[in-house]
């Protein structure tokens, strides 16, 4: 079990990590998801010991890692640019960590072959790493980091440079491989791509502005994003600024919303489906006057004659349904999912079934 406690790091006067605490349980693949330059890589480097943290502690199985030298931590790290040794061939790259453990010749040969087979590169041992394709190099790097049986494997955007199809295929392989390695206690995977994160992780920690914005399983995050940032990061685009008025109404570009209980009394008003961190009482009383964000899920909008008037800008077929982008007369843009195609420039009414309020 890896425990990260309140790690902070400042770069050139600007805070990069503002107190990250995170626990990765045995057998778990944890994904750090966040935009580039957000400090994810730095956190990995701190865990690996390549950089010191300004404050905070790293524990592995209750053992403080502060004074453990890099090469004795028993962690693996797969670098973003792979960092394959250009002067060594495939076999020598994979064997490197085992040689550092003074493994016997026979043992090294067996383990390297096992690893190469695991990553689907059996027979590549004698090849020059400089002559491999990107995907093959990725696999060599993975085999290399797994060969010495690390307790913890960290992967820093390992599929970053690859094309989409290859990436999707590799990410599935990767999860299977990681889950199959008995000696691997935990894995920490850094990416900026939510699809990749959803595909590989047991749990995802979204990093924003040096803090963990939300942590949870993919479905949890999707079902209940903790903030507008998280929602946006998970690919939800229908987010609108909202103002909570004194009487509990919520004003947005798309119209005024009320809480569910009031909506029953006044059917013309729109329903607020969920408002995390705002209880309905505080909303009703209007005591919370902060700016918030209103999230509208694309499948919670119906197209009809009534409702918010809008014009269809674009409509494409996507995985069995249609996805359309519409713009209201007041200029707000939404993405909606519907069962039938809409003509471009057609005028429609948008019936919004519910909105969710998120902290901005």
């Amino acid at each position, binding site marked *: 079990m890896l425990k990260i406690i309140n790690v902070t790091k400042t770069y050139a006067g600007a805070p990069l990590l503002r107190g990250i605490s995170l626990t990765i349980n045995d057998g778990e693949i944890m994904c750090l998801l966040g935009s580039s330059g957000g400090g994810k890589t730095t956190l990995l480097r701190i865990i*690996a010991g*390549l950089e010191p943290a300004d404050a905070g502690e790293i524990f592995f199985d209750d053992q403080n890692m502060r004074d453990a*030298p*890099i*090469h*004795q*931590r028993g*962690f*693996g*790290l797969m*670098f973003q*640019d792979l*960092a394959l*040794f*250009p*002067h060594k061939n495939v076999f020598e790259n994979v064997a*490197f*960590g085992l040689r*550092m*453990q003074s493994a016997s010749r026979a043992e090294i040969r067996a383990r390297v072959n096992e690893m190469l087979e695991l990553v689907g590169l059996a027979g590549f041992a004698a090849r*020059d790493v*400089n*002559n491999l394709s990107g995907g093959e190099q990725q696999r060599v790097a993975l085999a*290399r*980091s797994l060969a*010495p049986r690390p307790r913890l494997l960290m992967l820093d955007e390992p599929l970053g440079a690859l094309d989409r199809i290859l990436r999707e295929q590799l990410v599935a392989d990767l999860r299977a491989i990681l889950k199959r390695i008995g000696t691997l206690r935990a894995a920490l995977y850094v990416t900026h791509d939510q699809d990749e994160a959803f595909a590989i992780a047991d749990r995802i920690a979204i990093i924003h502005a040096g803090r963990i914005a939300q942590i949870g399983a993919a479905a949890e995050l999707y079902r209940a994003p903790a903030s507008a940032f998280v929602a946006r990061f998970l690919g939800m685009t229908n987010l609108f600024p909202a103002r909570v008025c004194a009487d509990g109404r919520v004003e947005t570009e798309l119209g005024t919303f009320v809480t569910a209980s009031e909506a029953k009394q006044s059917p013309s008003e729109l329903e607020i489906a969920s408002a995390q961190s705002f209880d309905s009482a505080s909303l009703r009383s209007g005591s919370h006057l902060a700016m918030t964000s209103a999230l509208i899920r694309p499948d919670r909008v119906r197209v009809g004659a009534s409702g918010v008037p809008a014009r269809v800008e674009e409509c494409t077929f996507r995985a069995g349904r249609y996805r359309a982008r519409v713009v209201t007369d007041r200029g707000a843009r939404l993405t909606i999912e519907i069962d039938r195609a809409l003509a471009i420039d057609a005028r429609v009414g948008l019936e919004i079934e519910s909105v969710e309020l998120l902290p901005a």
Partner: protein
Amino acid sequence: MKTHRPALLLPLAFLAAFYVYPLAAILQTSFSGDTRGLAELCADAYYARVLAFTVFQAALSTLLTLVVALPAAYIFARYDFRGARVLRALTTLPFLMPTIVVATAFSALFGPRGSVNLALMQFLQLDQPPIQILNTLWVILLAHTFYNFTIVLRIVGGFWANLDPQVENAARVLGANRARTFLHVTLPLIAPAIVAAALLVFIFDFTSFGVVLILGGPRLATLEVEIYRQTVNLFNLPIAAALSLAQLVCTFALMYVYTRLQARLAQPLRLRPQAIVKRKPQRAREKIFVWGYLTAMLVFLMTPLVSVIAASFEDGSGYYAELFINRRGSIMFVPPMEAVRNSLFFAAITIVLAVGLGLLAAYALVSQSRAARILDPVFMLPLGTSAVTLGFGFILALGNLRASIWLVPIAHALIAFPFVVRSLLPMLRSIQPQLRQAAQILGASPARVWREIDLPIVARAVIVGAVFAFTVSMGEFGATALVARPELPTIPLAIYRFLGQPGLVNFGQALALSTILMVVSAAAIVAMERLRVGESEF
């Protein structure tokens, strides 16, 4: 990245003991409290002219050397051809020829009755020799290019050979023609190596002694020549010390600018093993270019040397036989094999000292910390210090050590050390730090990381450095003459002993020993290059 403080200690201690301390001692004695020398220096316009000429000829020589040697660096970096190793070793030979031998070789070719002039006069029916370059700026430029060709070839070629050609291909695909690709892609990438090489060449030309003194004739003087005259012949130590200071300041300023530039230009490169980068010349145009240029290079570098070798056999093997005979029963007689042995012995120690200290220093300098920024040029200063000044400093400062046999390799290492540092730095700077980190994470201790990652990758640069240290040591004369023990003369010292007396046999023996120097050195250099850790690697 943190500075490697402990790594710095050894080279710094070495410099402090064998460079700074003797230099301070001689400067202190020379000035002994008064600044007469400095005042005189500033008052006399002659010295300003000497400085101007020194800079002028050095800049021109450097430029010419780069222009001539860069295509060769390209050929050696990008093409795979038979005999590359031997050819590269041959380019090093001019570097270790004693100036007076080269001067006589040049004279035999370009003198008024030299073979080139005689041939031209006969062919063109002329009364006067058409080529009159001796004792002019031209012959200085020519000789400097002749001597320093190998510096550019080795430093730039070694770096270029590991540059991923993919980058150039990318530029070509993006629509850049050959010239633009070179100008905008290749040149910026190899710039650190070019700057490093140019720097060394410039310093060599700036502090050039023998070439200017002998070939340039007495009307052309560099600072170094003036220091020698003032120290040895006029014993005007205050002026000599003032000139030494001036030269030091110039050298330091130059070094500072250049080392900063070099550090800024350095970027992590994707280094590729040579095997992939190199190819055989295939199209006719390529073949003409490669073989044509190599032929021209050989003619330029080898003709003077071949004329020395040919002249050494004028008497059949007589001059060689004479080397082994102590005809006058002199106590100063040196069996030639003993001179060869002494030279090789000193060269081996020099390699160990210079490469060892150079590696440590280069590691410390990679960090680019503030200390490194100052130390980088400081490490280059021995190159900019006149051998005479330093030799006199040794007398004053080194007490009981001054008759030690170790002074010779120490002096040689002082001169070779900057070469090693300069050839290592671009390579070290270009190793991606991730490679080291990856090794560490895979369980390699820092020492192991060095052995597994750095050493194999910098092996080429280490070989380049070792070859330089070797050639410096084999060819060095000025400092050696001042510190060597007479019973342990090096080959150049023995050559000068012969040249100090009139007579054909003396001259012939000097040429025979020069030939032996060339053969032994070429063999050693080829052997060293074979040590380069396997051709499939870096």
